[in-house]
């Protein structure tokens, strides 16, 4: 079902994190919608308390459906899930008291002011009167919206809305915070601001379950990531573990019109070459020692009189992890032609 890089699998504590308690556990979690669409096809997850866990995948992979099941918004068709030790089906109200949720669609009432919205949210979590006003002020300060607090949320920018939505998920200081694509559609500056907020929230001890389709975001924020594709987890581990599974270096040859098969043939076998992945205008060579191989690659291409656009060297990225796990790139989502090393 899934390839796993030393993920905590059983018991109340995660061996990987030196005995940290498990915040989220799912076993065989599945959701089939009417019409037989299998959005999530039986996934296992273990998220340790206090970590930022990234749930990575393209649109339609099953990320949001998984989050909605874990948040009690959608019952699983099969399997089980626990959040902070509470089964989502047995006691959904108890789960809701323990979690904060900021879903992909920013959940704000456009006619309320930022302050009204947070005070209402406090009230829904049993915080009323002076305590609600104090908590609201704290959160407005936390997300930098004090000056805009008396304005209707419909006048907020996308970044401000996202920050207020984040604040509204924190009114009751939840043990687990679910963030479903919190930066989708935001400009780079707003994205960085959200990242800072996530780090700050996590530093205060909140476990963060973050879905994203941005590899950089997962790399920047997450202690561990799971990659989901077509409803199945295809890779799981820390970003470094996942990248290490791929090999060491990637030498990318920009073909610039050169024939891909001729280029592959010209390069042929190299010391430490693990595999070759050809995609559109690029040929990626996964090598143990990239710098030492570049000169040889250039020599062989020159001998074969093949002119290429550029040759670059990079460490494997999560994009490469995704490519290996699914056979295509996450961003752009073009099918890649994966080729075994000769």
């Amino acid at each position, binding site marked *: 079902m899934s390839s796993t890089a030393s993920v905590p699998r059983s018991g109340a504590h995660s061996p990987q994190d030196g005995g940290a308690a498990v915040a989220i556990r799912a076993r065989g979690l599945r959701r089939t919608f009417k019409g037989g669409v299998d959005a999530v096809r039986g996934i296992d997850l273990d998220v340790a308390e206090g970590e930022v866990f990234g749930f990575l995948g393209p649109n339609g992979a099953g990320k949001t459906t998984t989050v*909605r099941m874990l*948040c*009690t*918004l*959608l*019952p699983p068709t099969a399997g089980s899930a626990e959040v902070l030790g509470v089964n989502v089906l047995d006691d959904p*109200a108890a789960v*809701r*008291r323990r*979690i904060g*949720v900021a*879903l*992909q*669609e*920013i*959940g*704000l*009432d*456009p*006619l*309320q002011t930022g302050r*009204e919205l947070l005070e*209402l*949210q406090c*009230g*829904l*979590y*049993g915080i*009323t009167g002076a305590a609600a006003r104090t908590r609201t002020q704290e959160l407005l300060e936390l997300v930098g919206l004090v000056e805009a607090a008396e304005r*209707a949320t419909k006048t907020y920018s996308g970044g401000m809305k996202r920050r207020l939505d984040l604040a*509204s998920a924190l009114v009751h200081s939840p043990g687990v915070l679910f963030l479903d694509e919190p930066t989708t559609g935001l400009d780079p500056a707003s994205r960085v601001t959200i990242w800072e907020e996530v780090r700050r929230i996590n530093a205060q001890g909140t476990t963060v379950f973050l879905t994203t389709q941005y590899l950089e975001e997962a790399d920047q924020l997450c202690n561990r990531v799971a990659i989901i594709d077509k409803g199945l987890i295809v890779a799981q581990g820390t970003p470094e573990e996942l990248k290490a599974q791929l090999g060491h270096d990637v030498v990318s040859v920009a073909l610039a019109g050169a024939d891909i098969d001729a280029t592959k043939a010209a390069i042929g076998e190299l010391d430490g070459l693990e595999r070759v992945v050809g995609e559109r205008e690029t040929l990626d060579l996964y090598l143990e020692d990239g710098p030492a191989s570049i000169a040889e690659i250039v020599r062989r291409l020159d001998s074969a009189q093949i002119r290429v656009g550029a040759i670059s060297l990079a460490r494997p990225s999560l994009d490469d992890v995704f490519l290996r796990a699914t056979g295509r790139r996450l961003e752009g989502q073009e099918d890649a032609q994966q080729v075994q090393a000769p």
Partner: protein
Amino acid sequence: MTEVLLLGRRAVREVIRLPAATIPTLFIPLFFLAVNIGQISKTFPSSTPFLHGQGYVGFQLPVSLMFAVCTATSGLALVTEIDLGYFDKLLVAPIRRASIIFGRLAADLVRGLAVATLVLLVALAFGMKMRSGAGGALVLIVLAALWGVAYAGIGMLIALRTRNVQATNASFLIFFPLLFLTPNFVPFNRLTPLMEALARANPVSYVIEGLRSLVLEGWVIHKLAICLGVIVLTGIVLTWLSVRAIETYDR
């Protein structure tokens, strides 16, 4: 209870901040009131027995009140929240889902009281007199508003079932046959036999009859009791269906 009050207060604030959602709902009842009186008052002068010495405006007022309070506003507000994602935010809060419905109904009550008062004032300006006096006017307004609350369940039910703005908006159309298959222009005994049978089978007829009795006849207890009974029963059934729809939403 706290959550109902909180959500109710929010919904009422919404009514106040978005008058554009309420004002158009007043246009049709006031238009019908004016047009019907203008066209029919000569046909039915105050000497007509069923008018009890009043002008036709008193006979028509309950129909206009029905128009004013029966809206799809709550359903539309609900489906808009579903669209915007705020509904999910409420569902994931540790509250009873039914409180979302009751919060909306609180706003319907406030809106109903306001528009019923306005329509009544317009009718009084047309020369209508309340046979049951000021107390009767108050009861008239409250009963009309309560009917609006009871009827709001249809809009919310359609909103929750379809999650579609157009379908929810169209739920208002359901009210047209309910309103016109009643003794809306003349009493039961002046309708054709078929129309009379249909009108007598239509619960809305008894709400109109009850409200009308306050205007034209004074305190006719059995008519008011039936009117209240229909309102309560309709409210219980439609609210129960809405609560059931929200409890089973995505389940």
